């Protein structure tokens, strides 16, 4: 049984990222979308002149947050094999090798970056010790060095499974909040909102904005800056949901715009907001001032960080509160009635428009809070919501589109499956596994786990 943990370690383990950054006129216009994983190990800034260098940072991705690795030797050779320069990673893990000539002169050339195996920390080794880098003006080039088998990580499968299960539950709670919002909006309006990911990102950005205000918010000697930031993000996201509905969706419903047309409008909104976020917050990823690096608690063989506990507790409390509201209050019952059959609900005297408006506020507030909490656990960038949007969809469809309990159940299945499946599949493919499961479930049970069977064709 010890084959699996080793294989997992082979991919999660140490990954160093070397970026070629170009100065002067050669500033990258758009950042490459595939930057997953670089969250807590940001890259050094390139110089803003006409010189060119290979910059990079060596990070150990086995740690959360990723920790820089010092003293790793890097050699750069040209395509003919002649050494150009060498460098050693500093205390923050960064290294820089200057290339001869200007950026333009190097266009189209290829360099080989080699990592000195002996200088790596004990117990680690890389699969590839050298990679080719082709210089171009359009993009920064990012190169990853996945690590080979890491000896010494002989924890049992059971323990590793338990550890992954905990990670899965933390993620599931966040996913459930976002999925609940999406499902409620779908249930009451029939809109599959592709801009829901941007509601998630919105929460993370608002929390960050509050966090970055000068000074710290202290209550009774306790630094509660991030806690307050989360609370503000929750409220402002709710307001944003109200604006969304009042300014866009409600007029569209009045016009009698079809559901598919609204879906395409939501795609436009998603592109619009995502680029607006990038405009204001940049392409890099951000961390909050607190909880970004903390020592994990050891409970038996399991490691859990305080922030994971806090995030999970907050998430569970909110989820329970929302489900209780939906189950027992008049408003909750009205919401479910509208989700079930808007015309019938309307005829029994429920103000359908008001319910929909409140659902938008609630759904956006939940999404925003989940984004802010996600930012606490792993940092965020302008497309964090867009990246997990498909998983939110998977959760909602898996549980049954439009059902409230289904969204939560689906989120837990997807969230836990994603983490625990890394026992068997490489972590880089864990999202793929979840999406494959989604398609298989649709084959067997098209209405989702908790959805009502209906003839649709």
């Amino acid at each position: 049984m010890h084959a699996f943990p080793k294989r997992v370690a082979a991919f999660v383990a140490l990954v160093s990222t070397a970026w070629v950054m170009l100065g002067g006129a050669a500033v990258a216009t758009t950042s490459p979308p595939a930057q997953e994983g670089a969250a807590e190990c940001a890259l050094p800034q390139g110089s803003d002149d006409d010189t060119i260098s290979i910059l990079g940072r060596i990070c150990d991705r086995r740690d959360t947050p990723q920790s820089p690795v010092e003293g790793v030797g890097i050699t750069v050779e040209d395509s003919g094999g002649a050494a150009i320069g060498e460098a050693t990673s500093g205390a923050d893990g960064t290294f820089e090798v200057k290339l001869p000539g200007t950026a333009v002169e190097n266009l189209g050339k290829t360099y080989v970056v080699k990592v000195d195996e002996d200088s790596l920390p004990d117990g680690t080794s890389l699969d590839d010790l050298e990679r080719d880098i082709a210089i171009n003006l359009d993009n920064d080039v990012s190169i990853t060095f996945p690590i080979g088998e890491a000896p010494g990580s002989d924890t049992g499968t059971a323990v590793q499974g338990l550890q992954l299960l905990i990670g899965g539950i933390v993620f599931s709670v966040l996913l459930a909040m976002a999925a609940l919002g999406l499902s409620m909006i779908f249930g009451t309006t029939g809109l599959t909102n592709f801009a829901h990911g941007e509601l998630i990102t919105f929460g993370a950005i608002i929390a960050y904005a509050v966090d970055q205000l000068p000074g710290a918010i202290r209550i009774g000697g306790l630094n509660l800056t991030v806690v307050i930031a989360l609370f503000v993000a929750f409220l402002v996201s709710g307001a944003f949901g109200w604006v969304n509905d009042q300014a866009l969706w409600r007029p569209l419903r009045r016009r009698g715009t079809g559901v598919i047309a609204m879906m395409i409008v939501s795609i436009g909104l998603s592109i619009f907001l995502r680029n607006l976020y990038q405009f204001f917050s940049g392409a890099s990823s951000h961390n909050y001032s607190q909880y970004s690096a903390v020592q994990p608690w050891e409970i038996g063989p399991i490691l859990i960080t305080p922030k994971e506990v806090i995030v999970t507790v907050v998430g569970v409390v909110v989820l329970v509160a929302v489900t209780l509201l939906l189950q027992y209050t008049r408003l909750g019952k009205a919401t479910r009635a509208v989700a079930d059959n808007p015309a019938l609900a309307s005829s029994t005297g429920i103000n359908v428009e008001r319910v929909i408006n409140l659902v938008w506020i609630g759904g956006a507030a939940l999404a925003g809070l989940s984004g802010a909490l996600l930012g606490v656990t792993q940092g965020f960038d302008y497309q964090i919501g867009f990246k997990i949007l498909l998983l939110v969809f998977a959760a909602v469809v898996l549980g049954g589109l439009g059902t409230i309990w289904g969204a939560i159940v689906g989120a837990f299945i997807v969230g836990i499956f994603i983490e625990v499946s890394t026992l068997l599949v490489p972590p880089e493919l864990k999202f793929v596994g979840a999406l494959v499961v989604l398609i298989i479930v649709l084959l067997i049970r098209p209405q989702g786990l908790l959805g009502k069977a209906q003839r649709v064709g």
Partner: protein
Amino acid sequence: MDWQSILSLSVQQAFGPTAVIYCLAAIGLNVHFGYTGLLNFGQAGFMAVAGYSVASIVSTWNMSFWLGILVGLLLTVVLALILGVPTLRLRADYLAIVTIAAAEIIRQTVGSVTLVDYFGGQDGLTGFIDSFRNLNPYSGSVGIPGVTAWSSYDFWVMTVGWVMVALSCVVVWLLMRSPWGRVLKSIREDEDAVRSLGKNVYSYKMQSLVIGGLFGALAGFATALRSAAIGPSFFATDITFFAYTVLLIGGAARVLGPVVGSVIFWFLLSFLGLFFDQATRGSDPLIPDWIMSPTEASLIRFIFLGLGLMLLMIFRPQGIFGDRRELALDAR
């Protein structure tokens, strides 16, 4: 502000290889969405399957380029069948979610380190275009004197590409004026009515998905040939969304809609990009640095794009040439 270079480069983009790609992808979506009412949000997946087939058959397995094209077309059909079986019996939004998920599955799989030996991971594949490039009859740069010019290879890709576009348009035109095409349009209008007339709606939808996917495959080949390289970032989810924008600008359910849409889309996108780039560069930029830096300026066009897509869908869903009555779509 160098208006001439802005206009010249915008025209270059408007008819360039990239416009060809989006035009072909949008023709496929036109068959799916415009004529049949199927919401395929995974056109990027069809493109990726085709593009990667050519690239990996040639670079990884050292086989013929033309075999790669054949395999690409076959795999696209297989993908359409796999996607269609579970979803075509379901409501429209299920197909949307499953296709978008499938496209992402394909993209992440080919970009994975696990399969780096076959698909090149995040770096992608290169060096598979020799047999195509050797057929290039042009040399030097080709173009309209005084307006714009393309490199000989780009112009070769464009020539083949626009010929494919023309052929595709003829195929779509012939298909849609046939009885078969009228069944597709009636499925879009009222699926139940078609079913009650004894037509096998499921089978017609499947045929539509396959045929539209094949046009997507052509777009995938063009993507691989344009850059002489292929990588997972070429097939991001946004590609599909842009292709939808192209389709909606020109007008869905119109044979020439995607062609006009693509030219206009790329002209506007490059124009905005170049305009804001020039407006923020230099020692005394038109837009001062505290408002936006050149990096931020490159995002403005996408902000406009998103806004444009929303406004287009709200106020003129039929685009330039479309018929509004044909786009009174609704979920079924």
